[in-house]
């Protein structure tokens, strides 16, 4: 075979790994969300399908797949069909730059973080397309709300990522993780491997930035308390009201994948990605994957936990928090970190 | 204020439009002329020593002798006294003056009385049926109401 054909096959194979990972991960998170939500509400989720409902995620997926996915008569057919795939592409593309271990990364581009910010706004287009195409008043509401929300939360996400990049000095996520290698004290959250004096000065700002990054990423993923686009009690189901069957499954999968992407990026930037917290005790290619996925799952659990505790914000409060609370704080942190690094 | 005093004041103020009263009943009531109910109610509502600011219940009635009627149960929160007003009207052309401008709650009560008995309240902002569908034949709570056999082509059982 000609070398180009070979490289194409290799890249296809390499890109298939995250897809397999997403499917496995989605099953686990579906089960996790179901069980955690149930036990937090003093009830027991499914116990019938398999031991303690283990097979329920498969049952859900199968149900969604074999369900008839209707297209509303007055819907804009082409956009309606395209929307879920755009949303999934937006999420799946972000997997390319997450460094799972020191040897494996989708594509080791030097503008990883820049690419991430660009791709995650693709999701907004997909949601807008879905909301507009289903020709339903509620979905229009959901779509417009989610557009406003996503756009206004791009700013805090981008700023907090900028602060992390300022501390580490490179846009390539692999290098960022290598910068943080060598135990917990080198994590960016605790000031990175800089001399102790700068670390101590950096500490409060990196904590605030990490907290803001996590909150803003909650809004990116449309999770409570920012789940206005699909607010059950007001907009029935928001932009995916008219979707059913396979397309709804695609939206669903995209949301779960997005949950992982967001927590994986937060972990890579601030908590040292695949580097183990005990220096080089448990580090190595296989351990690296374990550490990254473990830390990311902790944050996925945190998102689920928040979802079943907090009520929902109103649209104007949503905007208020983004523009008047998160962004000003980040400017202060940006200025302070810049100053400290220069000293 | 005992019902007797209320009756005397009303008789003094409105004279002939206070038609009859039964003050020894379990709950004393006064019957008023149905074309001046609004004035009487405004008087009852604004008069300082009456101050009937709470219309508890307005119910339509079919007296089964060719007369329909509306019964107003009024109470005052400050003075803690109650009175019952009645306004009757003939079955052929049932019209009573609306009091929805005096008490906001009368708006929906009067629409229900219209829906159930067919009593039209003059001066009501939005006189249409509230519970039954708009094209429902007849007024259900009248004593001589026959349940229609078919409604919009649907067979009404029983």
């Amino acid at each position, binding site marked *: 075979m000609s070398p180009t054909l070979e490289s194409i096959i290799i890249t296809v194979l390499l890109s298939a790994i995250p897809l397999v990972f997403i499917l496995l991960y989605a099953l686990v998170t579906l089960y996790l969300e179901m069980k*955690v939500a*149930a*036990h*937090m*509400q*003093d*009830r*027991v989720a499914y*116990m019938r399908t398999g031991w303690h409902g283990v097979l329920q995620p498969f049952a859900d997926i199968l149900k969604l797949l074999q369900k008839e996915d209707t297209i509303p008569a007055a819907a804009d057919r082409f956009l309606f069909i395209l929307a879920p795939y755009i949303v999934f592409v937006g999420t799946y593309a972000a997997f390319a730059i997450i460094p799972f271990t020191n040897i494996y990364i989708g594509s080791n581009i030097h503008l990883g973080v820049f690419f991430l910010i660009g791709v995650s706004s693709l999701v907004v287009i997909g949601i807008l397309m879905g909301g507009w195409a289903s020709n339903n008043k509620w979905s229009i509401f959901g779509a417009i709300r989610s557009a406003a929300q996503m756009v206004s939360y791009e700013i805090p996400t981008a700023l907090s990522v900028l602060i992390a990049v300022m501390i580490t000095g490179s846009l390539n996520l692999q290098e960022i993780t290598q910068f943080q290698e060598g135990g917990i004290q080198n994590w960016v959250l605790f000031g990175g491997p800089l001399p102790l004096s700068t670390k101590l000065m950096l500490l409060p700002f990196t904590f605030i930035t990490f907290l803001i990054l996590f909150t803003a990423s909650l809004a990116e993923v449309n999770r409570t308390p920012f789940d206005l686009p699909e607010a059950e009690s007001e907009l029935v189901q928001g932009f995916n009201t008219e979707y059913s069957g396979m397309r709804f499954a695609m939206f669903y999968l995209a949301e779960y994948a997005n949950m992982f992407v967001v927590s994986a990026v937060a972990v890579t930037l601030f908590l040292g990605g695949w580097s183990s917290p005990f220096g080089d005790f448990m580090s190595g290619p296989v351990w690296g994957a374990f550490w990254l996925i473990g830390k990311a799952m902790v944050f996925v659990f945190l998102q689920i*936990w*928040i979802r*079943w*505790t*907090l009520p929902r914000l109103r649209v104007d409060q949503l905007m208020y928090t983004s523009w008047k*609370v998160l962004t000003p704080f980040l400017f202060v942190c940006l200025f302070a970190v810049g100053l400290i690094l220069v000293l | 204020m005992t019902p007797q005093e209320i009756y005397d004041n009303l008789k003094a103020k409105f004279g002939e439009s206070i038609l009859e009263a039964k003050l020894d009943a379990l709950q004393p009531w006064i019957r008023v002329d149905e074309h001046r109910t609004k004035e009487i109610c405004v008087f009852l509502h604004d008069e300082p020593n009456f101050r009937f600011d709470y219309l508890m219940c307005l119910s339509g009635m079919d007296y089964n002798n060719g007369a329909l009627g509306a019964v107003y149960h009024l109470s005052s929160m400050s003075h803690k006294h109650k009175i019952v007003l009645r306004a009757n009207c003939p079955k052929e052309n049932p019209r009573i003056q609306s009091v929805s401008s005096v008490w906001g709650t009368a708006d929906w009560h009067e629409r229900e009385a219209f829906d159930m008995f067919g009593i039209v309240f003059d001066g009501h902002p939005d006189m249409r049926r509230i519970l039954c569908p708009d094209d429902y034949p007849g007024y259900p709570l009248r004593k001589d109401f026959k349940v229609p056999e078919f409604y919009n082509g649907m067979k009404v059982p029983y």
Partner: protein
Amino acid sequence: MTAVATYFGNIFRSLYTVAVGMRITFKHLFVPAVTLQYPDVKLKMPERARNRLYVNIDDCIGCDQCSLACPVDCISIETIKSTADQDLGVTSTGHKKRLHVPKFDIDIGKCCYCGLCVYPCPTECIVMTDVYEFAEFDRHNLLYKFSRMTEGEIGEAETKLKKAEEEAAAKKAAAAAAAAAQPKPEPPKAP
């Protein structure tokens, strides 16, 4: 300054109350669940539970009290008077049974389970049991027929009744004729 105070006050209160809320839900992760796995673990019904109706037809004297008391008229009873020679026996509560009950139907689909029919029954033959799993695939099966009289018995009771009525009618006619024939010759006796 108050604007800045409220600004930071809001942020602090939001973080604090969110943390309090999350502590509560986390605590509930370790509280045992309250759900019962229904088909395996059944809730014990108290003895006054009002679910399915049951009629002990032997004790029923056909007095129609329960169908009068029912607000939704879901009980329909038909009775045939028994003639003198038939002895229907005595109910467990000592009431003499004088009526055959060929038809005692309760449409449990219409019943509103209010229990008003249980109180007026003199022989307490209608009872609300605590059986609540009586769903049916066909609505017509919800019409419970409690009477156990076969077609033959009903036919026989009817013919007997008709015969007894004819005799009674004949006897009354004869007595009336006889009474009409006698009054003149018999002078009123002295008191």
